[in-house]
């Protein structure tokens, strides 16, 4: 299929990109890797008449460590995130989530910013970023602001971005000591396939107890879903199979899945239970702890 004729803009600066975004408003779409945007055009899900290619905007690509903060430019490809030694060392669950996306061809085009901004419910990197306490830096025509990643997502395919605002980078703080995180997803095949359900978890240990638990579910609600009740149950408890089973059950109850061609709501709920348990187990192992 081909897409309708469009206006093409290739701003050379962030300010210019924001100004164009503001000028065209909802009639503009920012183009990064295009792996979501171009198919959305083809199935008439995207109708913006102006494409603003961010390709040439400087300073939005790359992964760096700066005063303890891991900074991932929004235009960094998923392949680069997956392969980055820094990401693998500091937030391995995010590297796992990146590696789970699409095919090599998709990962070398798709960007982490695009994975956030298209805000597809089954996107893989947001849950992993959210449990890592990631923040997003947005720049608009009137200045910059930072949000917790979890607050960036406002609905299925909807974000907190205002007109003319660009997601510039994802900032991940130093992970607390004795922490481990895991990203568990289920798909119908091992080869490239969208997640049917996913669970990200980060557990921080204090001695033989869980000091903090962060959990985010993917593909089972319009936005990545944190599960406060499960986190509260885990907090202060000793890791055990029974505890993880109970916390997994709370995750399953919290999920708001739909039925579609990839799986029924009931099945997705069941998957959340299983994936949550597996995520807790891997997180504890990565934190250097053990499960009773």
């Amino acid at each position, binding site marked *: 299929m*081909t897409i309708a004729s469009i206006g093409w803009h290739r701003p050379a600066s962030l300010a210019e990109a924001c100004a164009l975004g503001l000028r065209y408003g909802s009639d503009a779409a920012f183009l990064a890797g295009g792996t979501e945007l171009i198919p959305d055009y083809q199935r008439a899900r995207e109708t913006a008449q102006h494409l603003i290619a961010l390709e040439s905007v400087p300073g939005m690509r790359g992964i760096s460590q700066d005063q303890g903060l891991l900074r991932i430019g929004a235009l960094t490809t998923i392949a680069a995130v997956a392969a980055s030694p820094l990401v693998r060392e500091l937030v391995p669950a995010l590297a796992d989530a990146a590696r789970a996306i699409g095919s*090599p*061809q998709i990962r070398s085009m798709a960007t982490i910013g695009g994975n956030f901004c298209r805000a597809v419910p089954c996107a893989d990197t947001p849950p992993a970023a959210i449990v890592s306490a990631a923040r997003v830096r947005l720049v608009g025509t009137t200045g910059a602001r930072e949000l917790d990643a979890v607050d960036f997502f406002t609905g299925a395919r909807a974000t907190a971005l205002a007109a003319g605002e660009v997601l510039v980078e994802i900032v991940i703080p130093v992970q607390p000591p004795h922490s481990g995180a895991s990203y568990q997803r289920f798909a119908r095949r091992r080869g490239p396939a969208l997640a049917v359900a996913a669970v990200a978890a980060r557990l921080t240990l204090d001695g033989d107890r869980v000091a903090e638990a962060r959990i985010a579910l993917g593909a089972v609600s319009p936005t990545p879903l944190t599960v406060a009740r499960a986190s509260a149950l885990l907090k202060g408890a000793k890791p055990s199979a029974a505890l993880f089973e109970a916390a997994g059950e709370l995750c399953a109850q919290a999920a708001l899945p739909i039925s579609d061609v990839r799986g029924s709501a009931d099945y997705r709920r069941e998957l959340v239970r299983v994936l949550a348990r597996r995520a807790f187990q891997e997180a504890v192992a990565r934190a250097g702890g053990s499960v009773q």
Partner: protein
Amino acid sequence: MSGELMIRLNVNGEDRALAVRPNATLLAVLRDDLGLTGAKRGCGAGDCGACTVQVEGEPVASCLMLAAAADGKTVTTVEGLARGGDLHPLQKAFVKHGALQCGYCTSGALMSAKALLDRDPDPSRDDIKAALSGNLCRCGTYGRMVSAVEGWREHDGVPLDALPRAHGERDQERDHAVVGRGVTRYDGPDKVTGRAKYTADLRLPGMLYGKMFGSPIAHGRITRLDVSRARALPGVVDVLTAADVPAVWYGVSPAREDEQLLASDRVRYVGDEIAAVAAVDEETALRAIELIEVELEELPAVFDPEAAMAPGAPVIHPEKPRYAGNVNTRVDWHFGDVEKGFADADHIREQRFVGNRTYQAPMEPHAALARWENHADRLTIWTSTQTPHYVHRSLSRMLGMPMGNIRVIRPPVGGGFGAKAEATPLDYCSAIFAKRTGRPVMMEYSREEMFKHFRGRHKQYIDLKIGVKRDGTITAVEQRVVLDGGAYTSYGVITAYYAGSMLPTLYRMPNYRYEGTRVYTNLPASGAFRGHGVPQPRFAFESLLDMIAEDIGLDPIDIRLRNATLPNTRTCNALDISSCEFTATLLRARDTSKWPEKKGKLPRGKGIGVGCGGFVSGAGYPIYRSDFPHSNAVIRVHEDGTGVSLHIAAAEIGQGSDTVLVQMAAEELGVPYEWVWLADCDTTTSPLDLGSYSSRVTLMAGHAVQRAAAKVRAQVLAIAAGELSRDAASLVARGGRIFVRDEPAVEMEWAAAARLAFGRHGPLVGTGSYQPPKDLGGDFKGGAVGTSPAYSFSTVIAEVTVDLETGQVSVDRVTDFSDAGTVINPVTFHGQVEGSIVMGLGETLLEDTLFDSKGSAMNPNLHDYLIPTMQETPEIHTAAVESFEPNGPFGAKEVGEGSLVPVLGAIANAIYDACGVRVTELPASPEKILRGLAARAPADGVAAPPGETLPGLAGHTAAGGVPA
């Protein structure tokens, strides 16, 4: 800013400056502006990988990259791999390992592999599988691709020749020079370089692009159709509606001509064609389609075949009273005495099984390019088809033109599996447009349109009952099958017969009753899919046989051995089986898989299962009544005797038929394989062949080739006899030399003898034909379906792991032994079997086309309709057993379809062995497995005893409910 942009690309080392529109994809610019058609459009959505190129060294889906976004970058396409006349070692490795079949995915797979090797020249097998996981190959050639990438260095600096890679690679010992050897695939070099031009790769000056417009609803009457806005769009050259095309009822099956090219009144499924547009480019044609206005009176629709037969159901073909109750075909067969057979049984078991509506999903979308020949009232059409002859005949009937005025050319075909076995609306409409506009017209289906056109597997509802003696001997079999036919017949009459006719070929069954009912529904038409009607009944049979074996305490292989068909058998339904090494396939598979050490002894979650199958080696009768031989060949020797041209219209669709036909020609002539040129498949130069369906090519076209070659050889030997002063009967032609059998020193060059023959008698030509025996089959209605000169047999043993928490099944290892008669080429043989295993895995575990409550397709794309990737592919062991088919050329018979048939049952039986869940509905989705596991676990946590079957696995129907 919506005008054209100037961009600069470095493509394959050359700097190019191009004006592009901002919405043009890199793929479109490479193919249309630069003529680099190696990168293919398989899905247009980044799902299939056929369009993979390297941008700045990284593999990308060029269908998702805007050309404008590639400005200033370096692009490498498959055309940039070879250096000068020498192929890249990776390309040679692909050819030598047989790592390509239809070739449509090959360019993309090569570019993914190249990007990997640029980064890591010695990748692990796991790295290779990950790197190529985004390159779908429906031929299932994954294992060979892994080996090729792994072994690429072996081909560095080594010329590509025709000799087998592994020295003398053969499965069977035969005294042949060319037959039986894994020679280099005839179409290999063209397919690894991007030189092979598939239909959609062709470009003609002034060419228009056409698109179809289909019904938005599943059942209705057209009350208003207005194409004036579409016609008025600048760039639109012509629009067709029913008024502009012949009002002919057509269909590939003469028994049921129930289709019309464009609907004038009634539409019967979502996508039923209503109009077509031809415009200066594809984008304009698509925009014009959106301007077509149609109003429909919606009629009640039915999507379930059993509901469609009920009183009061909507009538889908009211104009044809013979289809009352929406019954399209009914079969009622009774052989022997089933009542007596069941009375004689010690144990009887019956079970309902439900299949799935799987789609062939060839990687190449259907395409046709038509040109009206202005110097006469004649048509040339290039079309992606498995059956050039049926397209030829259908066009002749639709257009009211003699076949002599129509020239059908079949370019390379990127897979078919039955999806391309009849003329499509693209063939008809492109031809009509070409005549009306005077310009060449290209038409292509999108991936979504392919799913809507369908002609895939009939979903079958199978009630099967088997009776056995205490020792496992089958006494009676009763099978009732309801087939979901969709809105039209396609090949479905034959499907309904095949679903019953092939069961008695594997096991002796003295008493057999079959009732088949093919029913119209408001879904896309079902047709002929690899194994044509047989895989689902065979899945049911192999499953029920295992259930019975467990009931009576027999090993599943032992119950099969007890009943296995023996050579030279006439089945209860009057099919004559000549060669049959079925027992050998069971025994060899049992040994190689180490079955006795595994069956019943694996830990919970791991399982092993057996399934068997087979197929015809060519249908005994053609689709329509005709006296023509089914296959015909002409062989012509070049005047100096150093080259040979083979003219045959058989259809290479990836199965390797070009290669095996060339091998048979070379063998029979007594010349090297490299001497033979295969002429393009073109009805003006190649005589009639019925095409690639019913696994007929090796046997039938092979016979025609062998006979044509024998005539040429006789002429050459007659000349040589004179020159050598010996009797022609004492001479042997082999490898380009002619010598006396008992005095090899007395010899001459084959070419010299051929040169003399040409000099004396003019063109040295031989013709050959093949007609199956006239009297095949029983004298009962439908007795023709299932007849064949020969039958294949195979056994598959599958080993699986079931994730007991998610229900996910992975297939770890598959062992296959096939009786395919003489194997003409072991590389293409193994490629076909391996591909069948991969495809069968998909049909068993992953695939089903799904529809919402209004009959709209829910997954008409390759990210929701998931087919196996390299990462699903198990470890596969395949081998041929010793066999010789007296009715086949050189003793050969089929393997391409029969090898799919056993896979479904083998995997289902392995799942049962692993976790006690009996799969009765396909696909065996993890959700169904999990529900089965839950139903088996009573509250006290003690697992239910094995042998329990779970009818409750149903409940998620495709049309209406929640898909599983």
